[in-house]
């Protein structure tokens, strides 16, 4: 194929793309765009609905988990309180034991040297152990009190999470309802569009797609043409472009009947 002939092919394609943009009645393309937009809106609405559904399910699941965690925290707080009570009882026992040791010491100090000294020693020993035990017990009470306090705090936080989850579930349900409203509105829009444009949605989609592809092909070929390896690249594309050019030639023939155009004279040459 000569360079001149190749250039003509490109011109044919360019005109065809131009025709897609300008030669076909503008209302037809606008209708196609309208349909495409409706399709996108319907798709987005469906995705929004499904996302809201998933969110609702997740929120419900999280709410159940939060309830389980809140119950656990409450149980932990109750157990900690029980341990604190038991530890306080231990502390009281130590206190009583301390009194026993002090009384033993007092009696030891009143008794004869030998027996009294033994009693005093035992008293001192017990008192030392009791003091250590009471100290440990006090620390334990403090630690358990802290655990109980933390558990109560945790329970409160979890209850907040549960409340948030409930709120999210409510919002998700609202979003879902709105998405359904949008879906119904789009269905009404589709009916009205069908009535107003007389287009079938499938055809409208094909028209929109063809216009997009024509614009894309034109842009790509223009780029190739201006490239320093343009001739070589176009040569490689020849087997693909030839049937396209032929189809476009036929199409342009049909379009030229409907009105337009400047490319009319070139068709025969193509």
């Amino acid at each position, binding site marked *: 194929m000569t360079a001149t002939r190749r250039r003509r092919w490109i011109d044919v394609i360019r005109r065809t793309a131009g025709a897609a943009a300008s030669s076909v009645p503008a209302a037809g393309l606008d209708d196609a765009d309208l349909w495409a937009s409706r399709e996108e809106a319907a798709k987005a609405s469906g995705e929004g609905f499904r996302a809201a559904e998933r969110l609702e399910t997740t929120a419900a699941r999280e709410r159940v988990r939060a309830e389980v965690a809140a119950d656990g925290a409450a149980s932990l707080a109750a157990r900690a309180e029980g341990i604190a009570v038991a530890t306080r009882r231990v502390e009281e026992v130590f206190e009583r034991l301390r*009194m026993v040791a*002090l009384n033993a010491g*007092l009696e030891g*100090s*009143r008794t004869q*040297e030998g027996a009294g*000294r033994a009693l005093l020693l035992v008293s001192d020993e017990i008192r030392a152990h009791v003091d250590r035990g009471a100290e440990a017990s006090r620390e334990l009470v403090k630690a358990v009190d802290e655990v109980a306090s933390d558990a109560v705090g945790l329970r409160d936080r979890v209850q907040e999470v549960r409340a948030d989850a409930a709120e999210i579930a409510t919002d998700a349900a609202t979003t879902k309802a709105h998405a359904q409203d949008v879906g119904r509105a789009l269905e009404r829009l589709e009916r009205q569009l069908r009535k107003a444009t007389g287009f079938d949605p499938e055809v409208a989609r094909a028209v929109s797609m063809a216009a997009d592809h024509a614009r894309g092909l034109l842009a790509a070929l223009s780029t190739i043409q201006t490239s320093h390896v343009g001739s070589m690249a176009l040569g490689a594309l020849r087997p693909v472009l030839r049937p396209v050019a032929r189809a476009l030639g036929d199409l342009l023939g049909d379009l030229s009947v409907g009105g337009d155009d400047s490319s009319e004279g070139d068709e025969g040459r193509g």
Partner: protein
Amino acid sequence: MTWVGATSSKPAPDHVSEPPAPGSAGVIVRIDARTAEAAGVPETAWLPATIVRRVALASSTTTLGTSSGISLGLALVEGRLLTLVGFGVTGPRAPVVLCTQGEGDMLALAVETIVASGRFDDVGDEGAVRFIDKIVWPLDLASVMARLEAAFWIEDATPPRLSLLPRSRQINP
């Protein structure tokens, strides 16, 4: 000098009496610093075994009045209702020293802590003892009781009120 012990068993013929143990027997108590200052008594005080019967925990206490940080009330100790002399705030399970006073009446002395009991080295002639490395002065219980009587009983014993005190101890009988 023969040591008189608590046991009533007869000593063996070859028994040699043990020497008296050194120091004085009693109880060391600690009183809340602010109360001690208000009451004019030492923070760490000493109660000799001659007036101390034993130590215990009060089941419950009630205060009837307070004077100079010393409270007067009732204490339930081991099932017995006793006069309570408390230094500072006394709550349930307060440690008390059961003391005999006057004609052998027992009273409960509530303190912050009962620190130790046993035999302690004497220091000087004024009844002080050594506890660890501190000199501890005795608590003058008779003086404390006299102050309480002056604060609560004598003041209220003016006619026409009926006083529970013996006639000889009343003012304006």
